[in-house]
Structures are given as C-alpha cells and as structure tokens.
C-alpha cells in the first residue's frame, strides 16, 4: 500500500496584477513526513504558504487536506481543518502573557462560549482549567513553562520562535507549516531546533512543511524538498538529489558555477 497522502496542492498559481508570484505549484505530501520548500529570496515560498493557509485565494489551482477541498476558504476554516503555521517575522500577541498566547491557540477547539464564562457555568470552569493545563503542557514541551506569566514580547528571540510553534500546536494541527524557523539562530540553536522539529513530529503526529534558508537544517531534517525559483518549481526530490541538481545550483549561485559543481 502506498503511504497515505495527507496534503495535496494542485497547480497553485498566484498572480498579483501582471506578476506571477507562484505558477503551477503542485505537491503531494505524505503523512508524517517533513518536507522542505526552498528557493532564493522572492521565489514565492511564503506566497505558497499564504495560499495553503487561506490568507490568499489562489488565482488557479486547488488545496486539499485529507481529501477535503480547502481552496479559497478563510484562514480560520483552514486552521480548523488542521493546518497551522508560523510566520517568517514573528507575530506574537505582544501584550499578552506567554500562557495566554498559547490559550488563544486552544480557543479553536473550545466548546464553551463567553456567555457561559460570564455566568460561571460548570462546563466553562472545567474546560477553562483543562485548557490552562494543556497550554502549560505545551509550554513544557517547548521549554517555556517557567516563563508562562511573562509578557510575550519580553522573551528572547529564540524563545519567541518556540512560543510561536507552541501556539500553533495548541490548535491541534495535522499539518504544520514553519516559515523560516531557524532564521537568526546560531549553529548550536539550529541543531537544537532540528531535534525539536523531529520530536514534535513524533509526539504530535504531525506532517511538517518547512521554508528554510539554512541548508544544514533543510538537508538535515527534510525527507523531500521542493525548490522554487521565480515562482516556478524547478526541482523536487530527496535532499541528495537536490544537492546535485544543476538547475538548483544555477538558481542559487548563478550559471557559471554549474560546470564546476
């Protein structure tokens, strides 16, 4: 039996006026895999993420998660279906505490509503306590539990990145999109991040798609890689295939380096 395909993109195209940011991006991602999406700056990687998570409605093409068509659905529908993401430039809720940031992620699966909270109904109290515990557990997982009551923007950079991941995990996703998780990290931190990404994949039964510029990280954790250049998918395959692909080398280093490589 073939491995189960959890996510599928078919011919995703995004045009902004005359500019085609992404053209005909297709991908089929296996359940439980870590897939990389790489390419030079401005290649359209984040645009792909935005189409997948519902922030952009693709000009053409379709997005499927577990066979369900999510094309052009608003972000909260995509999120409810099980797609969570982080951002290239960190977007935390800065005036909230670390714990509250995670609890906002939990809200998606919350059943009790504000009215029950106002009336102190038992259903709400129970759920609120459970949510708090779950959020603390998630913070434990990313190693931020001791900072739970700090304000989010007071955290150091690396911790903010991990908090963003914890917050995404709180929405109970099946498919997690990480936009440059290792940006601004030193080699030591990148190493830890790689292990961390592998860990959460097993612990939370995730499928992960990651945009990353740090090739050590990409080659280290990804099982499959898509390469974009000027919106076009120029290559895909296993890390070793990508490393020796002349088109990829050309895109990154320029034509004259291909013969030497």
């Amino acid at each position, binding site marked *: 039996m073939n491995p189960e395909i959890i996510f599928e993109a078919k011919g995703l195209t995004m045009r902004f006026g005359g500019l085609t940011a992404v053209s005909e991006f297709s991908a089929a991602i296996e359940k439980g895999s870590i897939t990389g999406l790489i390419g030079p700056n401005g290649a359209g990687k984040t645009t792909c993420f935005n189409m997948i998570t519902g922030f952009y409605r693709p000009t053409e093409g379709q997005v499927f998660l577990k066979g369900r068509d999510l094309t052009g659905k608003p*972000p*909260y529908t995509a*999120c409810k279906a099980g797609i969570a993401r982080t951002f290239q430039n960190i977007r935390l*809720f*800065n005036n*909230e505490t670390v714990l509250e940031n995670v609890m906002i992620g939990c*809200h998606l699966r919350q059943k009790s509503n504000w009215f029950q*909270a*106002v009336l102190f109904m038992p259903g*709400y109290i129970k759920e609120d306590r459970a949510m708090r515990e779950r959020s603390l557990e998630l913070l434990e997982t990313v190693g931020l539990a001791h900072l739970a009551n700090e304000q989010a923007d007071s955290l150091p950079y690396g911790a903010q990145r991990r908090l963003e991941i914890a917050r995404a995990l709180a929405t109970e996703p099946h498919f997690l999109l990480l936009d440059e998780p290792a940006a601004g990290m030193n080699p030591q931190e990148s190493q830890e991040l790689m292990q961390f990404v592998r860990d959460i994949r097993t612990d939370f039964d995730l499928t992960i798609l990651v945009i990353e510029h740090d090739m050590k990280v990409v080659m280290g954790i990804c099982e499959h890689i898509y390469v974009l250049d000027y919106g076009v998918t120029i290559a895909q395959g296993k890390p070793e295939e990508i490393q020796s692909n002349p088109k990829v080398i050309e895109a990154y280093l320029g034509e004259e380096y291909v013969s030497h490589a």
Partner: protein
Amino acid sequence: MKTSTKISLNLAVVAALGLFLLWAQGALDGYKIQILNLIAVNIILAMSLNLIYGFTGMFSLGHAGFMAIGAYVCSIMIMSPEQKEMLFILDAAYPWVQNAHAPFLVATIAGGLVAAAAAALIGLPLLRLGDDYLGIATLGFAEIIRVIANNIPRVTNGALGFKGIPDYANLWWNFGWCVVTFYVIVRLVKCNTGNVFKAIRDNEIAAKAMGVNVFGYKLLSFTIGAFFAGVGGALLASLLTTIDPKMFLFTLTFNVLMIVVTGGLGSITGSILAGIGITALLEWLRFVENPIYFGDFELPGIPGMRMVVFSLALICIILFRREGLMGMREFSWQGARNLFSGKRRAS
C-alpha cells in the same frame, strides 16, 4: 491568593459601595447626587467603549449613536401613554409608540438590545474596515442616527425631543447597572474570549492564523459594547429627564473617549478611575467659566472654557503618558497585596 479570598474581597467592595450609596442618599444634596449618578453612567459608557476600542482595537466613534438609540427606546417605553399624548404636538405618535409601556428595568434592557441590534446590523458592513476608516464610518453612523431622530417626529417627536421622562434612574439603578456592566465585561475580558479579543487587537494576521474568526469576534465585541452603551444612554435619559437629538452630538462620544484614553486603553479599572476623576473635574472646573478675580484684575468668564482646559489636558496625556493612567494594567488584589508588602511581582 485564593479565589475565595478574592471573591469575598470583591463582595466587600460591593457592600462598601452599597453603604456609601445609602449614606450619600441621605447626606448629600441633589447636585452632588446628580454628579454621583453621572459618574456611574460615564463609567458604564467608558467600560463599553473600552471593550470595543481598548480590548478589541476597533476605533469606534459611534457611541453617541448607540446611546441615542438606548435613550429613545427607553424613554418611549417608560413614559405613560397619556404623557406621550401631551408630548407629541407636531404629529401624533404611531400607535405602537403611543401604547408602548414597560417597567424601567425592561425598558433599559430593551434600549440596550435595540442598540446592540443596530450595532450588529451596521457592524456587518463596517467592521470589514480597518482602523481610521472604521472611526470615520462609525462617526457617520452616529450622525445618521441623530438625523433620523430629527426626522421621524411620529416616533421621536422630532427636534423637540422628550421632556418630563420619569426620573427612575436613581443612585441604585445607576450603580446597579454599573456593577453589572463591570462584572460582565471583566468576566468577558478574563475568559478565553477576552484573550481572543486582545489577540485581534495585538495582531490580526496572527489571530487569523490561530483559527480565529476575526470578523465574528469583532462583531461580538462591538455588539456587547453597543448593548451597554444603549443601557448607558437609557439611564442618562431617565437621569436628565429630557432628551433631544442635539444632545447626541459628537461631543458626547468625545467625552467617553476622553475617559477611556485617560484611564488607559485596555484597562477596566483605568476606565473607572478616569470616569470618577473626569466627571468630577468637569463639574469642579465650572469655576473657570465664571469671572475670576486676581486682586483688582478680573478675568472674564468664557462659557465652554472648561472644555478647552480638558482638551488641553487630553493633549498632555497623549504627549506625556500615552498609555493613560493605568496603561493596560489592572488593579488586582494580588497586586495590591504585593504593593503593600513591598514585593514586586511575586511568582
């Protein structure tokens, strides 16, 4: 600190407030009681605007409109049919206006509900707008309500407005509603729905990525805020016993906005402090509108001078303490205890 301790402390505060009101009712003259009443109404209005602007980050200038709706609905319902017959001299009222009659509690709630319904209705198109655009659009909405009130004499008695509205809104009603508003908004802001509101304020894009139906939550916050604005308007109508469309000009929204900004956007206790302070100051500052004597030198009194003083004060607040009195912080029992025991931030 234990939850039970906090609850008993809160109850103690409510009891103290009750005792104070009991004392005030007997010991203070009508003018001072009126100021206390205005304080309660202003706090209700400030908390409701704070929910919309301070906690959810929607720059709404439509408060006067919601208040007008609440005030008119409530007034129509508490005035007796005979009174309305006397009042509508331009045009006879519609039968449903003429015959509507209800107790004060029902009338205030109805005022709030109609205001909330109006908010939901205009929120559907308007809340898709961002910051400043929303401000301008809601400002337009408030103006529209005022113009409508001017032009449907068979419901609102046109520019003449209502006189002799029964003065049910005494200290107990006003402070009762104030406590209810405080309780509901504090609970709302503290539960996870409140976290979601704040998330939308802080970073709308991230909130969307977290699966928040941003538009739905904005509409919820806007509607709840409008409900309490309508209640505040209803209480104000019964308190002043006379309303007309001119009362609901932009300056009314401005007063509320001033309290919210001074108290701190996103701080309920800030709204309360500023509500007390500004209402009291507005009365106290009346002396600047009277002639002032420095020995032989006489400074002539200029009507409206206190608003100038207030606008200057607001400019100073924006310049020197933009986050307001309380910033986004809240008074909490734990915080007070830490302050007294000289500890900063107990973990």
